[in-house]
């Protein structure tokens, strides 16, 4: 594979709550510009992994490296500032505020003007222009001034991705980007993800196998907090172990 530091790497990452181990010595590499999927049955520890990497949980052991630098003990906000950004499985937006406001808040934080108490927010035109351009790019310009809560859920999921883009991510962790969206509307989200800049390393945590095989060029399978197997989609689809614990489970349903 590629040389040089990975966009994101974990070494022996471990987290336990008492007797329950949600992450067990996970060694994981996300290459620069990767299109990587993390899959696994319910309770495999996928979301815990995201929480560990982003700093919402602190690990019991192991290291997290971002672009080669150790970020294991950095607070969440600092990791975001460096470009380690996530979206949530259940949409986390400012529901009462407009789309433009949602994205502008993110852009302002990234530009370091979120704490400015003297100038009116409207005077920071560059930030608003940037936020609007992102919404336009995602096809959300028409709804820019509407409150998030009035949008269809599929549009809200897109907004969630747009807010993340407002933070200029180097690594973007998409936690089930299409969760809860009616099947007819997932296409729009997949297109948006495919259109993301190739410089952003993507890690997609997903249940929907169609989506995974469409988007990912590399797949890691997590079972009970451990990496079961990792490889290109064709290898994963053919792996008997994976078929048994994961695909088989779905096929049997």
């Amino acid at each position: 594979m590629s040389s040089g530091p990975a966009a994101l790497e974990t070494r022996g990452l471990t987290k336990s709550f008492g007797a329950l181990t949600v992450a067990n010595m996970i060694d994981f590499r996300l290459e620069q510009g990767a299109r990587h999927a993390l899959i696994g049955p319910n309770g495999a520890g996928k979301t815990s992994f995201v929480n560990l990497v982003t700093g919402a949980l602190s690990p019991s052991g192991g290291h997290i490296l971002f672009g080669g630098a150790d970020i294991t003990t950095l607070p969440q906000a600092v990791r975001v500032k460096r470009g380690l950004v996530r979206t949530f499985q259940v949409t986390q937006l400012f529901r009462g505020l407009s789309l433009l406001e949602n994205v502008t808040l993110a852009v302002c934080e990234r530009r370091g003007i979120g704490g400015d108490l003297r100038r009116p927010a409207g005077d920071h035109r560059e930030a608003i222009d940037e936020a609007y351009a992102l919404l336009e790019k995602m096809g959300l310009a028409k709804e820019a001034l509407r409150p998030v809560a009035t949008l269809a859920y599929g549009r809200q999921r897109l907004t969630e991705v747009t807010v993340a883009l407002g933070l200029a991510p180097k690594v973007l962790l998409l936690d089930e980007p299409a969760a809860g969206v009616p099947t007819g509307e997932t296409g729009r989200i997949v297109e948006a993800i495919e259109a993301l800049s190739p410089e952003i390393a993507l890690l997609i945590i997903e249940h929907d196998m169609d989506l995974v095989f469409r988007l990912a060029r590399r797949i890691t399978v997590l079972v009970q907090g451990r990496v079961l197997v990792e490889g290109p989609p064709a290898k994963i689809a053919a792996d008997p172990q994976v078929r048994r614990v994961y695909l088989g489970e779905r096929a049997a349903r």
Partner: protein
Amino acid sequence: MAAARFIRARLIRAAEAPPIVGPAAIEVFARRHRLRPYEALPWLTALGAYVLFPGYLPLAAQTLATILFALSADLVLGYAGIVTLGQAAFFGTGAYTAGILAANDWGEPITGLFAAAVTAAVIGFLSGLLILRSSGLTLLMQTLVVAALLREAANKASAITGGDDGLQGMQVWPIFGHFEFGLFGRTGFFYCLAVLFLCWLIVRRLVHSPFGRSLTGIRENVARMHAIGAPVFWRRLTVYTISAGLAGISGALIAQTTSFVGLDSLGLERSGTVLIMLIIGGVGRLYGAFIGVPLYMIAQDRFSSIDPVYWYFWIGLLMVLLVTFARGGVLGLVDRFWPAGRRL
């Protein structure tokens, strides 16, 4: 009927109008902080009250000062989403600071206000530093305990504060050495009006700044604020400190205009009633205080002259009904019929 038809027509027009896009949308968004004509209303009303009800100037002055208190509480509750039962801690700190100065041969009112603001802000900062890492019920308890601590301190330090009897013997000097606080309350009225106006300018600027918008973000969704890399704790602490300072000024205004400070200025009842006033007007929207406080104060004045004791029964009933049926207060009702007025 005509009004209903007008409202319906407005709603339909708003729904059918094509969405604003492109530079126009950015323009609409960026100009939200511009002053609007209706924002002159509170000040015109205040001047109107001065002309029409000259006999009620002391009440009007109290109302203006209390609006400032409610505004301070709204910053914390309505913008930053911190449910507090201890806002009186800062009101009382300001009141006692100005009061003790005036009772000890420093009756200059404006420096008194500054001293009150600084003292209250320091208490706000220090207590915030300790408690604002908590959330939910623990935080609620801690705000309550901070106020209880200060009240008990004031109660027991009776040599300085007058304890249970209240602080007496305040001598407030004329403003700028010229305008005396008279019996009819004219000076007090304009003093409170001017201070409220200046503080309102500050608060207005604050809530429209990126900082103020980020507070709204914290109230709407803390997890999201963390995820966009905002230093949530420091934002909260900053607004808590500013709010404490404003509450301190409000307390000092009432102390100076009434020449009295009692233990109730630090009491739970005051922390509770300010929440009611806000909920009557509307929480988290800058003008809720301007509507809720006068309604409350005027009603209290009217009802207590008829029936001083049972005022609390009716206000209690009103709270129960508001929570059960009309969340959002008066401005919430306005929203329902006039969606374009949301910015109020």
